[in-house]
């Protein structure tokens, strides 16, 4: 399940309709046909607003007459299997979106084109420094960062007001507030937090100064038995005591945003922008009105918000692409500053663009605003080629299932 989560991070699901693929002919990907060549782009469902994508392609096709861009939307479900095999084919998609934690895993397979020499064209120097490491491996560049996002706490303003609780600034305030809500109404769940919300837990570990895995020479080793991890676990458990959510499930089973929150009785929960959007949509569909407020996950002290996992996506070029040069040019355009500024605008700031200069000033009181506050303390999981395996949908191998409530066996590979 984690794969989906990472993947889904930062997706502006609320604004992006499930629209048809942009492809205008049905042929299989990537083949150059007739006089014109084509560039096939695989983006994940929910990553790119349709209008923005259309704008990028229009500009690109104007620059390269006769070239067609085909956008194929992919589902996160089963994507690693699909991508792995696709990259091995003679006519793979030319440009692919990869989760930022998965990029290194694909880079070592030789499936991604080395972009080190194209740094200047891609605008490397302007990129957000926090996002770059996830696009590199052993000093070489394999992808362009695209966007990132992190979690924030979503709360029901009415319930908070009724219990007399204000958005907290520190962990202590947070817990005290939850306590207050619990006392005010026993039917209400102060915080919905399943036992396996792994990326929430990761933030707590970073808050303690620990990490998920430590590099030990060539190998990565799990570091979850460290004292830092243990105290993070204690805090996690404390929060979890305010929830009746299942202990062995993550936030996607059942989907907290659409299956849990709309049913009411949840005072607050930790989620991503698209989750908040999904919950609002579901509530409105049921004929109600959502009244959500947002605050960054509180840190230990008021001056620094809690650390958050910075999930997101990169864009890479397939090594076997038949049109590598065109693909690189498309990439430079789409991930370039101008288009990224439009992108940030199109997603209303819910996603952080790869370039700080392209950042969009989010609306006051929005999820994006709360998220932007903690962006400074965003971190990415260790960049290790084995991480993609860890995220693949499989139950307890490696770090991924070392959920906060999990057992101690793991190895970062």
């Amino acid at each position, binding site marked *: 399940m984690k794969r989906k989560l990472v993947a889904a991070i930062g997706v502006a699901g609320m604004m992006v309709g499930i629209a048809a693929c942009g492809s205008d002919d049905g042929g299989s990907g990537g083949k150059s046909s007739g006089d014109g060549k084509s560039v096939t782009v695989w983006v994940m*469902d*929910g990553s790119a607003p349709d209008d923005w994508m259309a704008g990028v392609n229009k500009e690109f096709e104007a620059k390269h007459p006769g070239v067609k861009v085909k956008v194929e939307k992919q589902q*996160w479900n089963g994507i690693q299997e*699909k991508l792995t095999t696709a990259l091995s084919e003679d006519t793979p998609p030319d440009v692919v979106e990869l989760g930022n934690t998965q990029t290194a895993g694909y880079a070592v397979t030789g499936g991604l084109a080395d972009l080190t020499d194209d740094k200047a064209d891609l605008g490397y120097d302007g990129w957000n420094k926090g996002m770059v490491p996830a696009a590199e491996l052993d000093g070489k560049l394999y992808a362009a960062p695209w966007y990132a996002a992190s979690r924030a706490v979503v709360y029901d303003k009415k319930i908070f007001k009724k219990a007399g609780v204000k958005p907290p600034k520190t962990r202590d305030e947070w817990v005290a507030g939850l306590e207050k809500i619990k006392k005010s109404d026993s039917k209400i769940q102060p915080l919905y937090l399943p036992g396996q919300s792994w990326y929430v837990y990761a933030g707590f570990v970073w808050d303690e100064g620990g990490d998920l895995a430590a590099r030990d020479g060539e190998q990565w080793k799990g570091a979850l038995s460290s004292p830092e991890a243990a105290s993070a676990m204690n805090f996690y458990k404390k929060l979890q005591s305010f929830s009746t959510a299942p202990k062995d499930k993550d936030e996607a089973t059942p989907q907290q945003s659409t*299956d849990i929150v709309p049913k009411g009785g949840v005072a607050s929960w930790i989620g991503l922008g698209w989750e908040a959007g999904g919950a609002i949509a*579901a509530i409105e569909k*049921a004929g109600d009105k959502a009244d959500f407020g947002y605050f960054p996950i509180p840190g230990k002290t008021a001056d620094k918000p809690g650390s958050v996992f910075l999930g997101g996506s990169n864009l890479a070029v397939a090594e076997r692409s038949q049109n590598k040069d065109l693909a690189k040019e498309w990439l430079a355009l789409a991930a370039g500053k101008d288009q990224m500024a439009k992108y940030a605008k199109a997603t209303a700031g819910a996603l952080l663009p790869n370039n700080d200069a392209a950042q969009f000033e989010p609306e006051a009181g929005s999820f994006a605003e709360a998220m932007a506050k903690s962006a400074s303390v965003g971190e990415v999981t260790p960049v290790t080629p084995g991480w993609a395996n860890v995220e693949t949908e499989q139950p307890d191998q490696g770090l991924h299932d070392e959920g906060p409530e999990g057992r101690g066996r793991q190895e970062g590979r």
Partner: protein
Amino acid sequence: MSNVSSDLRAPRRNRRPVRPSAIGKNLLALALAAVFLFPVYWMFSSSLKPQSEILSKDPVFLFTPTLGNYTKATGVDLFWTYVLNSVTVTVGAVFLALVVALAASFAIARMKFRGRKGLVLAVMMAQMAPWEVMVIVMYLIARDGDMLNSIPLLTAIYFVMVLPFTIWTLRGFIAAVPVELEEAALIDGCNRGQAFIKVVFPLLAPGLMSTSLFGFITAWNEFAMVLILNKDKEAQTLTLWLTQFQTAFGSDWGATMAASSLFALPVLVVFLFLQRRAVGGMTAGAVKG
């Protein structure tokens, strides 16, 4: 349990008007019918519920039905392409399997030849083929042979998936047709082919139906192969359509269940239509081994 089997003693009695002991039997049958129907009913009723009532702390039995989920499920892009592909692949595989198996099972059931025993063994072993874990090998073969996204290849794979069972079952049927019937036709001047077509074939109807049912279900439900082999949406089938309402952003359970109900419908219709013959058929085939 024991009273069920003790009834065996007097098989004819139950043809008589209802007696007290029959009430217990009927109640048991009703309870069993409920158990078997419930998940199906739940799928179907969920497909008619609005999203908010599908998952609920206390199950919702009364609700205002909506067809919204069905409109959504069938309104998907390329829906009819998937339908066409599924039908092509399934019907193609079943038809091929029947024709090829008919010839083979006739030979096995009626002719003496060297290697017959080995062949029977091979047919049995072929049923054990672990197709799910052979996906990657099939993928490599298809990729290197430039046959990805191919409906004919998918049809061929499904055909081989159902072939062993089809041969096995049909063989039982052919063996069950008295040789004398055929001989009579031969005496009448038919050649063996004619004798087969005129005499044996008509008697195989139930067998053909039961095996095609099995093949139909197998091919109709197949998921793993088509997922990896056919990435091109134009070459995908309904099983992939079934899963597309469960995304990382939340599952549309209503649409999933509507799609499942529609997906089950052809099988159900075929089943109920063929049930009487098919069921008798399965056994005859199976029993003859």
